[in-house]
């Protein structure tokens, strides 16, 4: 059997690439080492009656152009916006975030009248940065070291976009892309709880603390998505994040694509400097005109490609690619809704994101533990209860709780995680929740505890980094994953990369997969009806 393309890994980006190629008429097969599809956008049932979002847990970044092109709603995808959340404070209070502008201002003014009126200028500045970056997401970055007409044209486009900004905006942009979220928030706000809430998006998934330079950009990365045009809003995929990859799989199959699960790739087959197929770990070989890896850049080139086939400088750059794991995840089946002492009965905060880290200092101390090679003793948790909105993930009256936890290092003091470490990590998180919701522990029916070890072993994310590589300025745009290879190609002819290691990076966005497909189809001159990014007016 000869294919036009083999895609390694049935994560969301691999499936997006596969879908676009199949719709353009290519014969594609996706091979997936697990017995299920999804990668880190996956919903599994590990306790009777409950469905988890095992890894990623909320959706905003997934590009609407892709949903529409690939007809994902027809295949069951629904994204449900959720309401604001709250950060609970150690003194028994809380700060909530509301979708309603006035409710939000009044809530902020309970903590600081000044900060209540600072939120608008703050939002304006963040959304100005969003307006700059959103059009870049669905374009292949130019290669500034080459002088092909298309690179020059793309550089010119980028240059014009930049110089369309006012002088002060250019200063602001350069500062923003390099500064820490703590410094950025200090320019607008005075209240520590307000700052703690707003800093969250800047640390999620990154091995930086809120005081680390570069963390402000990570906030932007979490703000530049939208739910039905509402920029910065987040939602739940109905049925869990696996609904996204389930819809992609159905769309792919309908377009004639094939998915083979339980098929791990041992090696990419290379002949005369050209990829010709893959060898599976069960000994089978599949041949194809090209191989596209959805795995991260380290895993792809350091584990599944013969290094002798690669330029030494490229191998070195890939080795040095920063992909440090920083987070863990708890998925909990609850017998009933938890009751947080601080939150008023029936308040909408239960339908949003709940945090307990009430100052940036506390967040930074949690990061200090990570630097010392230990999971945070007082971790930051992004706790969500999707079943407050989504009726499909737990039996009525019972709830699925998703806890995203920072920080958790790839190794514990230089040693591999043990089961005992993992259980201690889980207990630390559950204890923290119980501090704010007494009796919480008794509601736990089942808990899946995932450290970077589990994320790497199951999903294949090197060091458990959820973005397939950190989102620092040195690893973005034409430097992602490494200089000279930002256009989804590799040093080996016909071996491509399409995962979050590539531009524009991580999150369940689909843009890397879409952009990779665009490059492949461009190379072989096959027409596609892929949509361009919607214009930012």
């Amino acid at each position, binding site marked *: 059997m000869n294919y036009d393309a083999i895609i390694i890994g049935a994560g969301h980006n691999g499936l997006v690439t596969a879908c676009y190629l199949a719709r353009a008429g290519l014969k594609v097969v996706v091979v997936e080492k697990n017995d299920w599809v999804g990668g880190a956008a996956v919903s599994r049932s590990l306790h009777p009656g409950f469905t988890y979002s095992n890894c990623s847990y909320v959706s905003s970044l997934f590009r609407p152009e892709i949903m529409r092109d690939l007809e994902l709603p027809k295949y069951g995808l629904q994204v449900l916006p959720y309401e604001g959340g709250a950060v609970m404070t150690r003194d028994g209070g*809380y700060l*909530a975030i*509301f979708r*309603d502008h*006035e*409710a939000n*201002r*009044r*809530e902020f003014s*309970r903590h600081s*009248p*000044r900060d*209540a*009126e*600072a939120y*608008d*200028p703050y939002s*304006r500045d963040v*959304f*100005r940065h969003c*307006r700059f970056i959103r059009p870049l997401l669905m374009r292949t970055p130019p290669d500034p070291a080459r002088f092909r007409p298309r690179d020059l044209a793309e550089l010119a486009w980028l240059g014009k976009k930049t110089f369309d*900004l*006012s002088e*002060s*905006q250019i200063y602001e942009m350069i500062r923003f892309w390099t500064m820490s979220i703590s410094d950025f928030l200090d320019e*607008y706000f005075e209240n520590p709880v307000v700052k703690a809430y707003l800093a969250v998006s800047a640390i999620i998934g990154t091995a930086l603390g809120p005081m680390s330079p570069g963390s402000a950009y990570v906030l932007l990365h979490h703000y530049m998505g939208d739910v039905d045009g509402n920029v910065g809003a987040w939602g739940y995929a109905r049925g869990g994040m696996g609904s996204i990859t389930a819809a992609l799989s159905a769309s792919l199959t309908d377009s004639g694509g094939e998915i083979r699960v339980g098929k791990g790739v041992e090696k990419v087959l290379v002949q005369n400097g050209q990829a010709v197929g893959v060898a599976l770990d069960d000994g089978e070989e599949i041949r194809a005109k090209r191989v596209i890896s959805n795995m991260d850049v380290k895993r792809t080139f350091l584990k599944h490609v013969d290094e002798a086939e690669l330029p030494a400088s490229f191998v070195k750059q890939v080795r040095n690619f920063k992909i440090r794991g920083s987070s863990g995840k708890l998925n909990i089946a609850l017998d009933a809704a938890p009751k947080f002492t601080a939150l*008023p009965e029936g*308040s*909408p905060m239960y339908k949003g994101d709940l945090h307990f880290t009430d100052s940036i200092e506390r967040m930074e101390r949690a990061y200090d533990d990570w630097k010392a090679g230990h999971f945070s003793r007082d971790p930051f948790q992004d706790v969500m209860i999707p079943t407050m909105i989504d009726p499909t993930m737990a039996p009525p009256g019972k709830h699925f709780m998703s806890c995203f936890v920072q920080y958790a290092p790839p190794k514990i003091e230089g040693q591999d995680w043990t089961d005992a470490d993992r259980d201690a990590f889980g207990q630390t998180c559950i204890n923290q929740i119980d501090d704010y919701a007494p009796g919480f522990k008794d509601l736990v029916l089942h808990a899946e505890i995932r450290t970077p070890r589990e994320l790497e072993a199951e999903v294949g994310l090197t060091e458990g980094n959820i973005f397939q590589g950190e989102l620092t300025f040195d690893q973005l745009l034409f430097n992602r994953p490494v200089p000279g290879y930002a256009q989804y190609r590799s040093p080996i002819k016909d071996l491509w990369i399409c995962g979050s290691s590539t531009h524009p990076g991580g999150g369940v966005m689909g843009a890397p997969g879409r952009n990779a497909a665009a490059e492949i189809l461009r190379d072989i001159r096959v027409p596609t009806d892929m949509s361009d990014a919607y214009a930012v007016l």
Partner: protein
Amino acid sequence: MTDPRLHFKTPLRQTPFHSRVAEANVLNKWAAWGGYTTALELSDGEMEYSAIRNSASLYDLCPMVKYRISGADAGAYLNRLTIRNAAILAVGSVHYTAWCDDEGKLLDDGTLFRWADTEYMLCCQERHLPWLLDTAAGFDVAVAEITEEIAALSLQGPCSASVLNAAGFDVKALKPFRMARFAFDGGELTVSRTGFTGDLGYELWIAPDHAVSLWDKLMEAGAPWGIRPIGTHALDTARIEAGFIVANADFIPAHQALREDRVRSPFEMALDWMIDWDKGHFNGRRALVAERNGSTSKWALVGLDIDSNVSTEGSIIYHDKKREVGHITAATWSPATKRNIAIAQLLRPYHDQKSDNLWVEVYALRELQYAKLMLRAKVTPRPFFNPARRRATPPGNY
């Protein structure tokens, strides 16, 4: 006192006059304004407008944002903040003013009240506390947001002075932009001869506890003159006739503008007449000097008189029916002048040298279908309506 944490159950507040406005609002036409429930129209919008120009109208002004600025340097501080000279504003007086960011772009306009030598109140549409506090560095001044501490009513119309006199508040000698204080209901009422209608009128400021009694008193005293509570629609018609601009309707405050080309300077909003170049430094001065000296203003605010009687709200303006040169930010058929008027933004020099061939493209909705019209527009001075009774002291005895 209800639990302040439960505010999310009522995201919109009610003003101190809400019980009375709700009673009058038989049409149930409400809208959110600045976090408050406010009335768009109470019983009949045209009759409400007519009350402004014919008798006396009562409008709930509470959502206007108010800041108290007090301290030994209050005057110097406001000179730094605003473009006009606040230090020479006499105690007991009010002036219209505006303020800019450091790039000389408009943040808001509003009215400044000098309560005492060292105490002012700034009244405006949008919220600016961080900017006001940042500007206070180096001044002996305290800035506080006091919107909820003061209930405000606007009493406007040719008979408004008569209504006040009948209510026991003698305002016959009160000149435009001056304030007077009266004992009322065990508290103190401040009356300023100000307003947003371009007609004779007053604004009344009182502690919220006395708000309802003030409303009742005015409605009772005003009955012989046909006093009428009004909603925002009627006021909006009157303010366009008066040529007044509104933040977030006629310009986007610089602190809110996502698109950098949306911000405007005082020159571009025809507010440059207020700038006091000699009072020393103020926010945005350097940029405004450069704009003045370099004649670099891009836009101009103009009044337009447009053919036909079809409202041109939101329309695009063309030169010679071809080249896009501006847009309309507010428009209405003017009952007082019998003209089709608009406030518009025009690229320079289409506001003067090249203003002879301007056209407005209008889509007029008639029974579910749009009629596309190209209407001739002429630049015309503001205010469109400016009756002598607005300034007469003592006011005419109607």
